[in-house]
């Protein structure tokens, strides 16, 4: 996105007016949306926003600063207000076309993106791999180009292959929003997790977040780790060694000083991992993991790593229990824990709509 376009706000009339619409109706909330000091006009708001939001695409959180994440979370606050209205509709993205392009099954991500787009007044079209030209062998690049050619401005993508949204982003000037790629990244899930944690716990700096389960195959864990690390939280990973990815925890020195994932602690003992945790997050265990020799049985996994009320009791008294869904109750999480007062699993889903509205809004202003 061209930075100058935002600084000279009038270039994108729709963007400016959309901020104004929400601001006008919600008085003080305007500051949350625009990220400007109270009372600033739309132009000032847009100028302030320019410094805080420079993303054309949202592909992962590995290129987000703390300030950028906070900006998304502030904007999410404003979107929660919109959702709380009697008629949750604003014309912020009127004239913008959002396509959800899903190559993999999804309930919450797709539904919440669709709803988020509609609340903001965008036209939303849904494309699935099945029943589309993808079934006829059309390549991803061609599909993306086709969608752009029919006028799509924002492409929300879910794909089984890690990196697929990066391929799409390289071949279109539409904004690409990653709705989950392979084992790699799920940035909107991570942002809604951060939002949920922060709204309950306040600042995440120094908070201990235990992530339990199938880290190796989890895009949610990867994006959460990037986001939590930037926000200053301490991340503890707990899983049997077969479900931990290679090269974690070992700092690998290279010319770029790059690491697989930012600093995490690995604690195979679940009791030790959960002790004093502010957040206990467990991940979905795919049943097919049993067939590839990664685990002996669901029963054994559940006994060693299942989140039970006894284990939650080891965490801090205020600890949150989280799960990105869909859950296997009785496997990675006991049903009573999933429904306990500490569980914020449903809240995660609700926040998911607001977070996705925030991202569509921030991207759509520049698209």
């Amino acid at each position, binding site marked *: 996105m061209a930075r100058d376009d935002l600084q000279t706000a009038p270039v994108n009339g729709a963007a400016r007016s959309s901020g104004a619409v929400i601001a006008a109706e919600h008085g003080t909330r305007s500051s949350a949306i625009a990220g400007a000091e109270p009372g600033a006009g739309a132009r000032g708001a847009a100028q302030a926003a320019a410094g805080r939001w420079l993303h054309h695409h949202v592909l992962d959180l*590995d290129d987000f600063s703390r300030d950028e994440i906070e900006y998304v979370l502030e904007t999410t606050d404003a979107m929660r207000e919109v959702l709380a209205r009697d008629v949750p509709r604003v014309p912020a993205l009127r004239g913008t076309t959002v396509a959800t392009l899903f190559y993999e099954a999804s309930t919450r991500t797709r539904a919440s993106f669709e709803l988020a787009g509609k609340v903001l007044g965008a036209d939303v079209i849904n494309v699935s791999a099945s029943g589309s030209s993808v079934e006829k062998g059309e*390549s*991803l*690049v061609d599909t993306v180009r086709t969608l752009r050619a029919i006028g799509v401005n924002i492409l929300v993508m879910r*794909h089984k*292959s*890690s*990196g*697929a949204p*990066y*391929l799409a982003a390289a071949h279109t000037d539409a904004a690409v929003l990653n709705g989950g*790629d*392979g*084992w*790699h*990244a799920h940035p909107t899930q991570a942002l809604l997790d951060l939002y949920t944690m922060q709204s309950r716990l306040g600042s995440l700096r120094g908070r201990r977040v235990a992530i339990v389960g199938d880290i190796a195959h989890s*895009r949610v864990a*990867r994006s959460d780790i990037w986001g939590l690390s930037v926000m200053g939280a301490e991340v503890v990973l707990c899983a049997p060694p077969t479900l931990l*990815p*290679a*090269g*974690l925890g*070992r700092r*690998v020195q*290279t010319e*770029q000083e*790059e*690491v*697989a*994932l930012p600093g995490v602690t690995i604690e195979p003992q679940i009791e030790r991992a959960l002790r004093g945790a502010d957040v206990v997050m467990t991940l979905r265990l795919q049943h097919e993991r049993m067939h590839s020799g990664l685990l002996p049985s669901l029963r054994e996994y559940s006994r060693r790593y299942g989140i039970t009320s006894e284990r939650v009791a080891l965490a801090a008294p205020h600890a949150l229990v989280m799960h990105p869904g869909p859950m296997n109750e009785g496997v990675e999480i006991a049903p009573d824990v999933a429904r306990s007062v500490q569980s914020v699993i449903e809240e995660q889903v609700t926040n998911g709509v607001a977070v996705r509205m925030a991202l569509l809004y921030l991207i759509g202003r520049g698209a």
Partner: protein
Amino acid sequence: MGSLLIHGARLIDPARGVDRVEDVRFVDGRVAANAGEPADRVLDGVGLVLAPGFVDLHCHLREPGQEYKETIHSGLAAAVHGGFTTVCAMPNTEPATDNRSVVEYVLRTARAAGLARVLPIGAVTLGRSGKQLAELAELAEAGCVAFSDDGSPVADAELMRRALEYASGLGLAVINHCEEPSLAKGGVMHEGWVCTRLGLKGQPAAAEEVMVARDCQLAALTGGHVHIAHVSTAGAIEAVLAAKARGAQVTCEVTPHHLTLTDEAALYGPPGSPVPAYDTAARVNPPLRGTTDRYACRLALADGTIDCVATDHAPHALTDKECEFDQAAPGISGLETALPLLLELVQAGELPLARAVEALTIAPARALGLDRFVPGIGTLAPGAPADAVLFDPDAEWIVDPREFASLGKNTPFRGRRVRGRVIATVCDGTLVYDGYEAAAAVTAGRSG
């Protein structure tokens, strides 16, 4: 056929321990004993290195069957562009090179191209399916110089044992692409921190190493000759070293890309790429490994544990690579960048220039005993075939696959600044690649 004199070049002929300025004259497709007599044509070699034509033991020409990726003609044009005068064609064609008629087709088409010589490698098993031995003796009669199911391993240990025994009766090697399928299954890159960063399934170094170790034991058991294709890990090199020490007939090769890149190439891509790049051009089998493995390969090439360099030239069409990383076809178009990449080791002071030349000429010829098929191959001794390459070891250029003669533009080296450029290639006494003008254009472009 006439005569051709190469004048004033630094002749490096490692087979004879020669490294000096010396004129070489070719007459009727052979190196003449006396360079002093007049010739029909003279090539100026002043400031250049003259070496025997390069020999590639591992090359995919794709024809018959996948002519949209490469043809025998385009592949051989790429070969001579890269200084190669002999290439061994892998049998993973469609149909597989598992019978006489495909071998004859390849040889006939290669002869018609008239650029470089092709020595076909026959399939070990019918259809390269790893189930039943192909008619190895007939393949040998038809002109195959070794056997391989390359692209796939000979996974069944008993079948590998029998293949080694049977091939030893023919005096030929079995070349194995070592990759234990159960360990490598689904892996699209090296298992290490980069695959975790990218969320891609890795294949561990051990997938290669367990099969290399197995094949070393089978070579000792059978007395057969196993040639390990494209070794890429420190552990594989250790196994080869141990097998050689005990006298087993084991040889191996390394590719230019395993000497110069690591798995980070998939993450960072060519210069100027966004991160992560998911660069499908860096997807190759065996995968680009970690820094320790790359270092081990470089050391082992220098000390001779690794016998030679082979390109594993694997051309692909754009659509095979312009897709999701895990859907991309593995392979690198390598014939036209092999020399400058190997010279990077020379420039880094890790490899003597003579050893680099050796690893591209007499060493591969010896590894498979190619002298039996092409007497004198890999040297410029009097009477040897008039196969030679002239290169400028100091010419700098930037790799641009659009300039490749190969149809396969798939290279992770695009945009890389390299040093060392082929100026002319002579095969069988004929100037099959003339790069004087192109080299001059690059020089002019740089100074202008």
